[in-house]
């Protein structure tokens, strides 16, 4: 088992209280940053660490921070994106509910680095119990002088607010999140201007994922170079992977980036193999929006190399034979999974969650869902399969925000790798619509 930077003390009883957290080395990074470092040094440290955004896009956090416009006399904001709602991803919820102070510590250090005096945690509306945990932890941090005016006598002030969302997936998109935070309808904004120039209340803003902000804590404690020693190549440090699906041991694992996918699925240290002794059929490696890959391609790249849990290795081969690390929502599907049904299920989600602002996504997500529904329920035609690819292509790249792509990619990838299953649904509607039916290369079996 590799080193754990974030979740080392997650199972310590009472770690969600200030005293216990402090006893286990908590808030060291705040002390170090505020007393011995300038804000620019903190940014430099994060740059050195090579930390990449953990929310899905994998954009280098240090670089994002350095893009922040710093006009004189204008407030800047740090917003933590805790609106985790991607199907298959549930790492931030765990991290926040068990280690609320880790996020708060990261928020203080990061806000200091960016020069923000007011910061927000925008949390998914459904996670109301986590909101309470965070609010309690924030109150403790205020009481102990880590938030408020003149933190630790350094002259730096910070107010931290938690704001619950209204339960929309789209509010996890950074500009929709800012709109929602401003009290408006959560429609993504057109970019440019980017949030780094005009974000919250038209002020320069950085929006970071919970895990990215939490990772700032070990980076400042041990130094960016130390952090960069973990991992492979440009994928440095550790990553929380929320593994679910047909695994023996689903759960949240903090892995050192670079673990082979095969080891992650089959070793007892991690997921412990596929349940009921079955065979693996497919994996969605980074939350429902990334392309699905069949067993052959997720374990080994098209070139025959072992696939590793890194940003680069998983995207090896582009979308033809690769996928993305995304937000780390690892969904494994055994041989009894119906890919058409699964794709329909994902599609239904995106149809429901499209904000309806731009036409390709508003109309396209519904269209995809309806065609998939038809295929799954035995009313499909052969030409529907090409229609899916064509509609997905019409959405992709033409929308305001990435939700269009998130809806199009899984459909396109499912047809790309599992076309035979779609065809089987068209040619054998009676068999395919039996409850629990799935396609198998050996024989189509009902369960």
């Amino acid at each position, binding site marked *: 088992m590799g080193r754990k930077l974030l979740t080392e003390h997650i199972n310590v009883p009472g770690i969600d209280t200030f005293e216990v957290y402090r006893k286990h080395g908590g808030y060291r990074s705040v002390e170090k940053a505020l007393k011995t470092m300038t804000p620019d040094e903190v940014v430099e440290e994060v740059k050195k660490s090579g930390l990449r955004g953990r929310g899905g896009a994998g954009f280098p956090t240090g670089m994002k921070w350095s893009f922040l416009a710093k006009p004189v006399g204008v407030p800047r904001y740090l917003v933590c994106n805790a609106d985790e709602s991607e199907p298959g991803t549930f790492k931030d919820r765990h991290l926040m509910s068990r280690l609320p102070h880790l996020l708060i510590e990261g928020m203080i250090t990061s806000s200091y680095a960016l020069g923000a005096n007011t910061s927000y945690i925008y949390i998914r509306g459904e996670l109301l119990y986590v909101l309470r945990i965070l609010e309690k932890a924030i109150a403790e941090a205020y009481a102990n002088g880590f938030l408020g005016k003149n933190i630790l006598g350094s002259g730096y002030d910070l107010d931290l607010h938690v704001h619950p969302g209204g339960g929309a997936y789209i509010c996890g998109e950074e500009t929709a999140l800012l709109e929602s935070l401003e009290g408006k309808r959560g429609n993504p904004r*057109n970019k440019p201007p980017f949030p780094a120039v005009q974000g919250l209340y038209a002020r320069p803003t950085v929006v970071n994922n919970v895990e990215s902000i939490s990772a700032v804590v070990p980076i400042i404690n041990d130094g960016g170079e130390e952090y960069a020693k973990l991992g492979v190549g440009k994928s440095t440090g550790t990553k929380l992977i929320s593994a679910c699906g047909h695994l023996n041991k689903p759960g949240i694992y903090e892995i050192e980036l670079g673990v082979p996918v095969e080891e992650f699925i089959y070793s007892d240290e991690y997921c412990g193999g596929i349940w009921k002794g079955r065979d693996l059929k497919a994996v969605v490696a980074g939350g429902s929006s990334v392309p699905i890959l069949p067993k052959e391609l997720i374990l080994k790249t098209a070139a025959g190399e072992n696939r590793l849990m890194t940003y680069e290795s998983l995207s090896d081969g582009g979308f033809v034979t690769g996928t993305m690390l995304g937000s780390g929502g690892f969904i494994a599907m055994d041989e009894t999974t119906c890919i058409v049904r699964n794709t329909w299920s994902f599609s239904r989600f995106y149809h429901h969650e499209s904000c*309806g*602002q731009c*036409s*390709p996504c*508003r109309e396209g997500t519904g269209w995809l869902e309806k065609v998939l529904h038809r295929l799954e329920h035995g009313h499909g035609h052969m030409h529907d399969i090409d229609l899916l690819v064509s509609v997905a292509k019409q959405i992709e790249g*033409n929308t305001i925000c990435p939700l269009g792509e998130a809806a199009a990619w899984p459909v396109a990838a499912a047809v790309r790798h599992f076309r035979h299953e779609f065809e089987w649904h068209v040619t054998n509607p009676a068999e395919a619509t039996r409850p629990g039916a799935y396609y198998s290369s050996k024989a189509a079996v009902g369960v």
Partner: protein
Amino acid sequence: MAKITFDGIEIEVPDGTTILNAARKIGGNIVPPAMCYYTPIKGTGGKCRACLVKVAAGSAKDPRPMPKLVPSCITTVQDGMVVENTTNQSVLDVRKGIVEMLLINHPLDCPVCDQAGECDLQNFAFEHGVATTRYEEERRTFEKIDIGPYIQLHMTRCILCYRCVYTADQLTEKRVHGVLGRGDAAEIGTYIDNIIDQDFSGNVIDVCPVGALTDKTWRFKQRVWFTKPVNAHRNCSHEKCGGRVVLWYKGKDVLRVTARKDEYGEVKEWICNECRFEKKETADWTIEGPAHIDRTSVISANHYELPVLNAQVIADLPESSVRDLENNPPLKLGR
């Protein structure tokens, strides 16, 4: 000033101009269509994706192409920018896809729709779309909603361009309608049963690109191409209203009053509800003369102006037909 190349044509425009407005300065068939953007209303644009263009070179300083197609209505020009619209096949293909997307939930009820003949979506589909549909499922439908004494909302036809929301926000005292719901279940609504009757609210009818918001004093009175548009003005007591309008005549009756629009369907001077809904006698107005209707439009097919055949249509005609037309012109040739 910034110099840009649009479809091979160079033009110099002030900094901060959008690509679409730069193209409109050139004019003609290279202008990208716009379904949601409305120059006089702040905040509009970027939603319908009809005006997507390819930026082949970002600027003179940074000549890299932009990775994705960009909405020309909200992307501002940079000096040295090279933009491809009709010269880029991928742009035209995407536009075809946008027409298809906009039409899948739009009822094709043009024969009974009041907007037919002056409908942006109709023109857009006619110019850029295909004649068939691949959509087999049921379309979404809504009941017609009465939202006040003058305006009817038929949500089924709405393409969610948000124009009316921004217009009401910026022109009227208090906006009572907005977008409710999300995705393809999103709808324009007055929460819960509010009535839109503020002054200037009638302008939402003019900005609506489709027949979703219609004038109740005009509904079903006449097809628009059978009416005669006439420019007129009156001394309106309302300080914000210039009283310069278009009267739409059938015989000697004024069937409706609208604001004057330019060739891209944009109102330049807003009019108040009194001018629009309550002054329907010739005696209320000073007549200036026939209104000029630009572009290929069925409205102009009937009177005053001959429709202009665009260059593409002429290019597609056989040589002999072109000669016939030139010798005996029923239409003005646009070249």
